[in-house]
C-alpha cells in the first residue's frame, strides 16, 4: 500500500507554468502539492531554455564588446577565457535562479514532491520516486504543466556529441570551427546568431525561404544581413535528406538537392514535443491531440473540467511569459477567482543578435483585417541620437496604423533593446493610444524610445490631407 495524501490542488511540473499555478493556489490559501521529476525546480526554462540561452547571449555580446574595446584600450583577452567564462557564468546564473525559485516555493508553503507523476484516475496522481517508492496524492483540481523537450527527427541521429539538440548544445566545452543549424525557428535563429558572433562558421538550413517566417520580412532581412556580416549563411528552401557523423572529424549533411554540407558539429532545432509520456493521461480520461499535445479551452481546462493544462504541454506560443500567465489564470478559474482581463496583445521577443520583437498586427494582417491600405511609419536607429551614441545604428522600428493613420495596430522592432522597447508599443495598443500621442509626448532624450516619435511622425506625414 502506498501512502495517500490529499490536497486542494496538485500541480505537475515546476517550470514557469507550474510554478505560477502553484503559487496562485497557495496565495489563495489552498493546500498545494507540486510534483517535479528533476532534483531542481524551474523546468526547461531555467536549465535548458530561456535563462541559459539568454545568459549565453548576454555574455557573448559583452565579450565581443570587450574584445572590440581592445582596439581602444591596451589589453588583450586570453582566448581560453571565452568558453570557460561563458560556461561558468551560465552555471552561476542558472544555479542562482534555481535557488531563488526553490525559495519562492518554500516561502509560499507549497509541498514539493520529487518524483515522476502519473494519473491513476482523474483525481488521483501517483508520484514515483527515484528508488521506485510511490506516494498517491488526491485533489479535486490538478494542473498539468509538464512542458516540452526537443523533437528528435527520425532521419537525424542526434547523439549529443557531434549532432546536438538545444539541450546538449549548452554543454559544449569548446567552440567548434563550424556548426550546421537545422531549423529556421526561434531557437535555431537565436543559437545560430550567438555562435556566429562568437566566431563559429554557422550555416542555417531550413525549408522556408527566410528564417522566422512569422515575423515582418523587414525585420528578418535585417537579421539576415547582421548574421551574414558575422560570417553566417542561411540556406533556405532546403530539405535535409540525412546527416551523419563521419567517424573522424565532421558531420556531413546531405540535402535533397544533392549538395553536401560539412561541419564540425550540428545543432538540430526542429521543434519540440510535449512531455506527456509518463503521465498516463488516459487514466484521467484524457487523450492527446494528433500532435501529442493536451487540448484545452480558453480557460486552459482540458476535456475533464477539473484538470487544467498550461504551458508548453498545450502547444504554441510556447513562451515562458505566456506559460506563467496561463498557470495563474487556470488556477484562478479553478478556484472561482477573478483572473482579470485576458491578455490581448502578447509581445513576441526573439533574442537573436540583433534582437527582434513584435506586438499587434503586421502590415499584411492589418490590410487583411481592415481592408484598404495600412499606413506604416519607420524609424531607423541611425536617425536617433542614442543609436549613434551607443553604436546601435542597425535597427528599425516599424509602426503599423490603420488607413487613416490614427489608430495604432502593431509595432515591430529589430535592433538591440527591441525586446524592452516593444513594451511601450504594447501599452499603446492596450490603451488604444492614437498615433498622435506618440508625437505630442516627450520621451527621455537621448533614448531609443525616440524611435516611436519618429515612426509616428512618419505616419502623420503620409495621412491624406
Amino acid at each position, binding site marked *: 500500500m502506498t501512502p495517500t495524501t490529499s490536497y486542494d490542488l496538485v500541480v505537475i511540473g515546476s517550470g514557469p507554468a507550474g510554478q505560477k499555478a502553484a503559487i496562485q493556489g497557495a496565495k489563495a490559501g489552498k493546500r498545494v502539492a507540486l510534483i517535479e521529476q528533476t532534483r531542481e525546480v524551474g523546468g526547461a526554462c531555467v536549465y535548458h531554455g530561456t535563462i541559459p540561452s539568454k545568459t549565453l547571449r548576454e555574455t557573448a555580446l559583452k565579450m565581443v564588446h570587450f574584445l572590440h574595446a581592445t582596439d581602444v584600450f591596451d589589453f588583450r583577452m586570453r582566448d581560453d577565457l571565452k568558453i570557460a567564462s561563458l560556461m561558468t557564468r551560465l552555471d552561476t546564473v542558472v544555479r542562482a535562479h534555481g535557488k531563488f525559485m526553490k525559495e519562492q516555493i518554500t516561502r509560499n508553503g507549497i509541498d514539493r514532491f520529487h518524483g515522476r507523476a502519473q494519473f491513476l484516475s482523474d483525481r488521483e496522481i501517483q508520484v514515483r520516486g*527515484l*528508488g521506485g517508492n510511490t506516494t498517491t496524492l488526491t485533489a479535486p483540481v490538478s494542473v498539468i504543466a509538464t512542458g516540452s523537450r526537443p523533437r528528435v527527427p527520425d532521419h537525424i541521429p542526434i547523439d*549529443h*556529441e557531434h549532432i546536438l539538440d538545444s539541450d*546538449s548544445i549548452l554543454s559544449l*566545452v569548446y567552440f567548434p*570551427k563550424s556548426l550546421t543549424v537545422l531549423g529556421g525557428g526561434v531557437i535555431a535563429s537565436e543559437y545560430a546568431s550567438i555562435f556566429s558572433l562568437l566566431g563559429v562558421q554557422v550555416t542555417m538550413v531550413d525549408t522556408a525561404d527566410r528564417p522566422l517566417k512569422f515575423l515582418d520580412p523587414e525585420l528578418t532581412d535585417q537579421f539576415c544581413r547582421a548574421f551574414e556580416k558575422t560570417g553566417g549563411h542561411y540556406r533556405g528552401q532546403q530539405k535535409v535528406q540525412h546527416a551523419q557523423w563521419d*567517424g*573522424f572529424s*565532421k558531420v556531413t549533411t546531405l540535402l535533397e538537392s544533392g549538395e553536401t554540407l560539412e561541419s564540425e558539429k550540428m545543432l538540430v532545432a526542429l521543434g519540440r514535443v510535449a512531455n506527456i509520456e509518463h503521465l498516463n493521461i488516459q487514466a484521467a480520461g484524457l487523450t492527446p491531440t494528433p500532435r501529442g499535445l493536451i487540448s484545452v479551452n480558453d480557460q486552459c481546462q482540458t476535456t475533464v473540467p477539473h484538470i487544467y493544462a498550461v504551458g508548453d504541454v498545450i502547444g504554441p506560443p510556447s513562451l515562458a511569459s505566456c506559460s506563467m500567465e496561463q498557470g495563474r489564470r487556470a488556477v484562478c478559474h479553478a478556484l472561482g477567482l477573478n483572473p482579470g482581463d485576458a491578455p490581448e496583445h502578447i509581445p513576441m521577443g526573439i533574442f537573436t543578435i540583433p534582437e527582434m520583437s513584435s506586438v499587434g498586427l503586421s502590415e499584411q494582417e492589418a490590410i487583411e483585417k481592415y481592408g484598404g491600405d495600412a499606413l506604416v511609419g519607420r524609424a531607423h536607429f541611425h536617425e536617433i541620437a542614442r543609436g549613434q551614441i551607443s553604436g546601435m545604428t542597425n535597427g528599425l522600428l516599424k509602426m503599423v496604423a490603420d488607413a487613416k493613420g490614427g489608430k495604432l495596430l502593431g509595432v515591430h522592432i529589430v535592433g538591440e533593446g527591441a525586446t524592452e522597447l516593444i513594451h511601450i508599443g504594447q501599452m499603446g495598443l492596450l490603451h488604444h493610444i492614437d498615433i498622435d500621442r506618440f508625437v505630442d509626448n516627450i520621451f527621455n532624450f537621448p533614448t531609443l524610445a525616440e524611435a516611436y516619435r519618429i515612426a509616428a511622425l512618419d505616419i502623420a506625414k503620409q495621412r491624406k490631407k
Partner: protein
Amino acid sequence: MTVVSTIPTEESETETFRTHIVERLQQKELDLPLLPVVANQVLLLSGDPNADSSKLSALIQQDQALAGQILRIANSAACAPRSPIVSLQQAIAWLGMNMLASLAFSVSVQSGVFKVKGYEKEVRTLWHQALATGLYGKEIARRNRHNVENAFLCGILHTIGKPLLIHLILQARGDSPAQPSWAVMDTLIQESHILAGTKLAEAWQLPQPVQEAIRFYPDEAYHQANSPTKGAMITCLADHLATSIVDPSSLDEEALRALPVVQDLNFYPEDMDALLELKDSIQQSVEAFLV
C-alpha cells in the same frame, strides 16, 4: 662466512616501491609509456598514407596513455592551439589527420613501451576497465542530454594513475629478474593511483574537468567536485558499471541500482534499465579493443 638472504620479503619490497613512487611523484617530469600493441598499431597507422583516419581516431580514443599524451602535446606551445584543447574530438578536428598521425608517431617513439610481460591479463583488465568507464560515461551523459564528449574523456582518463604506478614500479625494479607479484602491485595501485593520476594530470595540464574526475570520482568524493559538467559524478557511476563488466563477481544489478550516485544523478529505474541494457554492446566494444 654468513650468507645473507637477498630475497626481499613482500613487505619490504612493497615499502621499497612505495618510497620510489613517492619520490618520483614529487618530480614534475612524469612519463607514461604505451602498451606494446598500441604502439605497434600507431606505427602501422601513422606510417600508412592510405590508413583509415577513423581507425587512428578510434585508437587515440581507446587508450588512456595515448589519449593523455595527445592532449598534452596538442596543448603545448609547439602546437600553439588558438584556444585550449579540452577534448579528444577537438584535438582531432583541430589538428587534422596528418598532424595527428605524426603526433601519435612521436608519442609512441618517445614514450617507449610497457614491459608488461607476466602481467598481461591484469594490465588488459585495467585498460578494459578504463575504456568501459569512458563508454559508460558517454551513455550516462547521453541520457542527461549533456556533456557526452567530456564524460568520455573523464571516464577513459580517470584511472590514468594506475598505468603510471605500474610503470614506476617496473622502473624501480630495474633489471632485477625478480618480478613483484601482482598482489604487491595491486596494493600499491589501490593505495596511490588517485594521487598518481592527480599528479600526472597536473603535470600534463589535462583539462580541468578531467583533473577533477581523477581526484573525485570515488563514491565518497564526488560531492566535492564543482565542475558544471558533473564529470566526477558521471565517472563514479560509469566506473561501477565498468567494474561489473570486467569483474562480474563485483556488483550485481540490484547493488548497482542501489548506489547513491544513481539517485544523485536523478536516474529513475527506467534510466538504469536502459543503461544496463547496454552491457553487451559495451562489452563487445571493449573486447574488440586491441585483441
